[in-house]
Structure formats: structure tokens, C-alpha cells
């Protein structure tokens, strides 16, 4: 049953060195504040999982929190590359970063398998591409009825999944709407979960297109207004496109990045 905690407490209790951690979000509702709290608390050796690692993953990687990234598309959406990610892959800076690379369809199905308590998922995917040669977690499987060859991918079951949502009630039931991506699956696939929300309300009135995560599948809820900035939260604030552009300059340069990182950590000190 979900506990209402501060973000600091939630990350402190639920995210440990060496954990496999998914901070999910598909352009919308990215749990940026939670990612930066992980940096502040200095976690190390994380296996980070996300379909679309963007600037908060660039920050986590640049800060040396991660030793591995499992992903399907790593970029600064609408801007370009993730320079800290590139620097880690190409020059082991600040620490080496192992990668496990999939397609979106594969990653989405890995979360579905995880949420479903199955060890693997089946899809029509990766055929003819060079990905299976590089990624051990893509294997063939044969249909027991038709003999047809398909592709299997193993379940993803993060130690902890973190997502951001618009609202929770005081019991910890969570409501999100708009583009909700793979967040339900990522939370249900995880052993533990943290949801940061724009606000905690007395009652979650029903809304079109809303996804509800009952309190009994969430470990902790933390009220963090603006916790998805510079991404957006439908009904609350718009995407700050200039912040994504500005990140390109910061992320491009180790010194600039280090300055940014010290400031981030300084915020707490």
C-alpha cells in the first residue's frame, strides 16, 4: 500500500546502489525531479532502463550513477544527441557504460511481460536488422501451432520504477492522463515503485483517458509540483523547449556539465 513520502525519503528508502531502475515517460510526464534526486543522493552502479532516455538520463549518466543502460532510443527530442551518453559510450567518461539496445516494440513488450508475470514476450520484431547480433536478449521462438519463427524478448522487472503523474489521492491511488506511454506496465513490472505527482487531492474525479494505478501496487507517492519540468504535465504546464535546447550546450562539454552538476548538488547542501 502506497506511503506518502517526501521525494528525498522515497529515493533514500527505495533506490539502492546497484539497482535496476526505470524512470519512464514518453516525452510527457518525465520524472525529472526524481532523477535529479538520485544524482543528489549519489547512487552508483545503477542499471538504468528506459525506452527513450533523454536529458535526465544524460544527467544521471554524466554524474556517474549508471553502469548500464537498457534502451531503444536515446536522444534529446527535437534537439539532437545526448552528449553525456555519447561520452560514456565512446570514452568511458566518467565511468564505462554498458548498453543493451532494443527497439521500442521490443522494450514495450519486455515491460508487458514483466507486468504480466511472464518470463518473456513474443513479437514480430528485429527481423533482418543487426540488433540481434549485438543484443543477447533477442532470441528466436517457434509457434507451437503454425511452426512460424518469431522473436522473443525477456521480461523487464526493474527493482524500482519511477514515474510522474498528475494526481494522487490521500490513500495513494494515482491518476494520470494524456500520453501515458508504458508507465502502467513499468510500474506493474517493478518490485518497488515511486510515483511523483503534481498534487495530492481529496478525490480523483474520473477524467477521459485517465489511467489509474491503485495504491496497492505503488510503494510510495511523493508530491513534487513541477516534478516533470522541463517536460510537460497535461493540465499543469507546457514543455519548456528552450531548456532542452539549453541542455545541448551544457551536455556537450565536460566542464560545463561539471559546473551544472555541482550546482545541482549544491542546491541541497
Amino acid at each position, binding site marked *: 500500500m502506497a506511503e506518502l513520502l517526501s521525494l528525498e525519503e522515497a529515493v533514500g528508502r527505495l533506490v539502492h546502489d546497484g539497482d535496476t531502475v526505470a524512470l519512464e515517460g*514518453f516525452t510527457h510526464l518525465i520524472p525529472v525531479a526524481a532523477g535529479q534526486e538520485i544524482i543528489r543522493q549519489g547512487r552508483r552502479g545503477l542499471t538504468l532502463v528506459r525506452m527513450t532516455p533523454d536529458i535526465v538520463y544524460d544527467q544521471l549518466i554524466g554524474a556517474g550513477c549508471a553502469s548500464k543502460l537498457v534502451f531503444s532510443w536515446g536522444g534529446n527530442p*527535437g534537439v539532437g*544527441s545526448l552528449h553525456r551518453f555519447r561520452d560514456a559510450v565512446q570514452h568511458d567518461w566518467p565511468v564505462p557504460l554498458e548498453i543493451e539496445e532494443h527497439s521500442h516494440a521490443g522494450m514495450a513488450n519486455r515491460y508487458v511481460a514483466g507486468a504480466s508475470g511472464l518470463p518473456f514476450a513474443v513479437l514480430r520484431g528485429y527481423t533482418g536488422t543487426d540488433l540481434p547480433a549485438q543484443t543477447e536478449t533477442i532470441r528466436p521462438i517457434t509457434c507451437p501451432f503454425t511452426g512460424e519463427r518469431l522473436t522473443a524478448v525477456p521480461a523487464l522487472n526493474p527493482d524500482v520504477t519511477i514515474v510522474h503523474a498528475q494526481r494522487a489521492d490521500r490513500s495513494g491511488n494515482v491518476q494520470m492522463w494524456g*500520453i501515458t506511454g508504458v508507465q502502467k506496465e513499468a510500474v506493474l513490472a517493478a518490485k518497488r515503485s515511486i510515483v511523483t505527482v503534481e498534487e495530492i487531492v481529496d478525490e480523483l474525479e474520473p477524467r477521459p483517458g485517465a489511467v489509474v494505478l491503485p495504491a496497492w501496487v505503488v510503494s510510495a507517492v511523493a508530491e513534487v509540483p513541477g516534478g516533470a519540468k522541463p517536460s510537460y504535465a497535461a493540465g499543469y504546464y507546457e514543455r519548456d523547449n528552450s531548456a532542452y535546447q539549453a541542455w545541448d550546450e551544457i551536455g556537450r562539454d565536460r566542464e560545463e556539465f561539471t559546473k551544472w552538476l555541482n550546482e545541482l548538488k549544491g542546491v541541497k547542501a
Partner: protein
Amino acid sequence: MSTDYTADEMMSIAAARALGDGMSCFVGIGLPSKAANLARRAHAPNLTLIYESGCLGAKPSHLPLSIGDGELADTADAVVSVPEVFNYWLQPGRIDVGFLGAAQLDKFGNINTTVIGSDYHDPKVRLPGAGGAPEIAASCGEVFIVLRQSPRAFVEKVDFVTSFGHGTGKGDREKLGLPGKGPTLVVTDLGLMRPDPETAELTLTELHPGVELDQAVKATGWTLKVADDLKVTPAPTEQELTVLRELEKA
């Protein structure tokens, strides 16, 4: 004069024209999204746009910056989860056209968005990766690709096959059991290429107005074949340019 236009404008307009009214289109971000939205405004009001963020039938009033803009969800017929968009909508082959960009493209329409350089583990350039493209390229009825032409982008053989086009030539898709026709059209800032019916090699079939054949040949990293009946793309109409410019402004 209002019929002056840039090569990029010509590219977007030529790409948009390929989308017929009533089609469904799985839209990649960037140039494909611009072309698809232009088509819906200019001549294909019943074009169904599908974005991998889960937006089915999005009707954005301005150009989305990412595949997950709020505008896409607000204007969609339905917003579904990301697993659903891939499993229920893309995978069964319901979608007519997959519209993709590329970092590298080879002469058989294979796409690379993973790494530049021959060593995956020590790449010259690490690109963003696959995203939805491998399965879009596999499952859509056909695939259109749009990107600016240059010898670095148009290569004999891609360094990494992120999304399968025609492999090493005609018949490779059938051998692998891929359901869709694969790339049937490549739109660039210089002209159009289509796979040769016999070999599946990308062949120049149209030049944009004012582009010399030599320009297109030099901007291609393989020995570009040219169709016997090489045509010239009709120049953008005033209406097309007006709609495109409004779209980019909005």
C-alpha cells in the same frame, strides 16, 4: 515572388504528395511529421496520422516538436498505451504507410540510426538508436523515407542495419517473411528515388525543378542509377507553399 521556394520546402512538398487521402500513416518525427501534416492540410484531409506515443488519428494544428507533444493527444481520435500502439495497431499490418527519416541510407533502402563506424562497441558516432523504426519498416504496407541527400548519408552499405529495407536486393524481404513492401519511395532535397522493380536498388526517378542530374549523382555515395524516363517533379504550387509556411509558423 510567392513561388520562390527552398530545396527543403520542395522536399517536404514532394514527400507530402506521396500520401493519398484516406490512407493511414505511422509518422516518424522531424521531416516525416512535417510532410504528413502538410499532406493532411493540403490535399488529404482524411489521412490518419499515427504516432508511436499512442496517438491514433492525431490532427495537430501546429507542427509537433516531438512524437509525444500534448497537441497530438488532445486532437487524437484515441490515445492508447505504447505497447498497444505497437502490438494492436502497427504489428498486424493495419497501417498503409510508415514514414521514416534516417541518418544513413543505403542503395537497398536499409536504414541506419544506430552507429556510424564499423565497430558497434567503439563507434565513430553513437546515434540515438532504433526507436520504433525496425518494426515500422517491417510491418507497414509500404515505407516512405525522407532525408537530405549527401554522400555521407547515402552510402553503398549502411554501417548498421537498424531498419531493414530490401536487404541485399530483390526478394530478401520475402525470404525473411516481412509482410510489408518495404521502402517504395525516398524523397530528398534533390529528387525522388524508387527501388528498381528488378533489383530493388534505389534509382533516381525524378529530379526537383532546377536540380542538375550531376548534383544528385555527386550527392549519392554509390553509383546512382537513373531511370530511363527521368522526370521532373512538378514545382510547388502556391497553395502548397502557403499551407507549408502556415504550418511552420503556427
